[in-house]
């Protein structure tokens, strides 16, 4: 664990991952390895292909070439729902809650995408079904308490303010009890106070649940804070630019160039 990539005991490994959308190569020959329990940051300018990497890991997109290994086994071609049940769950950059369901039901769904009783029992509501529902209810309320949404449990998810919707999405992803949690810009559109709350929440999840977390984020303060003892990967134009600890990344001239562009012959060449 730490600044160097693990050579053994990898929970997730991407090997030369590449995807083309028509003529656009969105992710180019990306390789990385992650050990269990790490907190990985994924940063890069807009359009660098960060979300595409998440979509590849969850198999929402099929890679053009390369391989994804989860706990040593290739998961290419496995459907997204199966990936989730294997233990990779995610949040979305543009929030994708179930808008007409209540807050509680959203979390509950994460708990039982695979129902815990048979279809017949669901029709006649045998004791086992009621018990499974009761257990789910308790777990869901624990999760809501964790993200501080307990008092909104019966509100319709679509009616929540933006910041709370983000928290709810995190709770829903955690409910699936994953081994790897993918957070896609959890702090987007938040002010400093909200960011601090969020950092506290995510750190608490990381420490209590022992998930491996990969996070895409633009708020540098959030990334630097959360990935303190871990690696940050920098993507630009679909390729891996570099990786390393937060201090290393911040002082890396290549990274600064990718983010801010560079002065060349008096012209400002943008790289985003």
């Amino acid at each position, binding site marked *: 664990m730490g600044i160097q990539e693990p050579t053994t005991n990898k929970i997730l490994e991407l090997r030369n991952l590449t995807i083309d959308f028509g003529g656009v190569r969105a992710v180019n020959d990306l390789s990385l390895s992650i050990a269990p329990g790490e907190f990985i940051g994924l940063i890069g300018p807009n359009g660098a292909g960060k979300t595409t990497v998440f979509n590849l890991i969850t198999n929402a997109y099929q890679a053009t070439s390369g391989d994804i290994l989860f706990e040593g086994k290739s998961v290419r071609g496995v459907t*997204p729902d199966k990936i989730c*049940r294997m233990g990779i769950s995610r949040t979305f950059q543009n929030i994708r*809650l*179930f808008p007409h369901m209540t807050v509680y039901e959203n979390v509950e*769904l994460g708990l039982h*995408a695979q129902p815990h009783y048979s279809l017949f029992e669901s*029709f006649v*509501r045998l004791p086992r079904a009621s018990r499974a529902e009761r257990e789910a209810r308790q777990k869901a309320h624990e999760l809501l308490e964790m993200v501080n949404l307990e008092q909104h449990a019966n509100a319709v998810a679509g009616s929540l303010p933006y910041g709370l919707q983000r928290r709810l999405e995190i709770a829903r992803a955690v409910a699936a009890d994953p081994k790897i949690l993918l957070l896609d810009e959890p702090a987007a559109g938040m002010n400093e106070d909200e960011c601090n709350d969020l950092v506290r929440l995510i750190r608490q999840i990381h420490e209590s649940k022992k998930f491996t977390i990969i996070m895409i984020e633009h708020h540098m303060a959030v990334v630097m804070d959360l990935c303190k003892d871990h690696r940050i990967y920098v993507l630009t134009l679909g390729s891996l630019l570099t990786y390393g600890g937060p201090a290393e990344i911040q002082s890396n001239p290549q990274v600064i160039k990718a983010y801010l562009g560079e002065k060349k012959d008096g012209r400002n060449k943008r790289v985003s």
Partner: protein
Amino acid sequence: MSNQKKLLIFLGGTILTIVTLFVLVQIAGVGYFQNISILAGITLIATLGVAILTGYTGLFTIGHAGFMAMGGYLAAILVKEYHVPFILALMGGGIFAGFTSFIIGYPAFRSRLRGDYFAIATLGFAEAIRLLLNNVRAIGPIKLGGSFGYMDIPSLNVLCWEWLGSDGWNGVIVVLLFAVGTLVMTHMFVKSQYGKNCIAVCQDEVAAQMMGVDLMRTKMLALFISAFFAGVAGALMAFYYGYLTPGFFMITRSSDLLAGVVFGGMQSLIGPTITSIVLVAVPEVLRGINEYRLIAYGLFFVIVMIFRPQGLLGYVEMNFDFVRQLWRREPAKATGK
């Protein structure tokens, strides 16, 4: 809305319904009322099935008459030719209809048909079944009769238990029992973890899949259940009429079912329940201008879609919690403060 107000509306609605029913019986005569009740019960069973598929899972269907036909014909054959008990034949018809739904469901969901495209696929399926039944005169020794119809099916009044009497009410009681049973079962289903998966698929397919919901299984399940209830409804219809012709299962029957759900409301059981009963009763009472109902439906469809796209009672759930809360209203109010 306060609990007292809800109770008032509930009681008022109940009294109004009873009074309306009483007046209808007086005007139309008992026999006529019995027939309408049976038809309403049968339509309700099929509509609740469509509510699960269309209202909760978001898959529009104009083909459930096809599943009604499959269930109806099979149940009729089982009882008439093989003397299977009534209840078993009903279940058999339902399950058979459920399995035939895989014929259309698997390829349609495999190729990710949705919205209008799926609706048209189901329409084609139902028409194919109807035309098939129209042209098949006999299967071995079983004389289906093609377009002339399958005759001499034992009727509800004979099949239903003797102790219920034979003045026509026994058929009503049996059908209404089935209808209420279906309502209770579908209510439990949509509240269950399976039902919630269906709702999730309806609201955001991508998010549902990312949360681990198996899209294929969930959709097939919703289709199977709705086809099952359509099959049971078809079987009851066969025993009610005493004969079946492919003409019973035209596209208008499918669209009647869909209309019940669209008018009644998405993600609601109580809405489709009310509208399906109204949609059966009104054309029957206004027999003379029955054929014009399709024009009126079209108009209603447009009006509903403009002013209330989620349906009249969309997202309104049956909920009798307020009755329970009224019993212990003082503590409930104390905590509310």
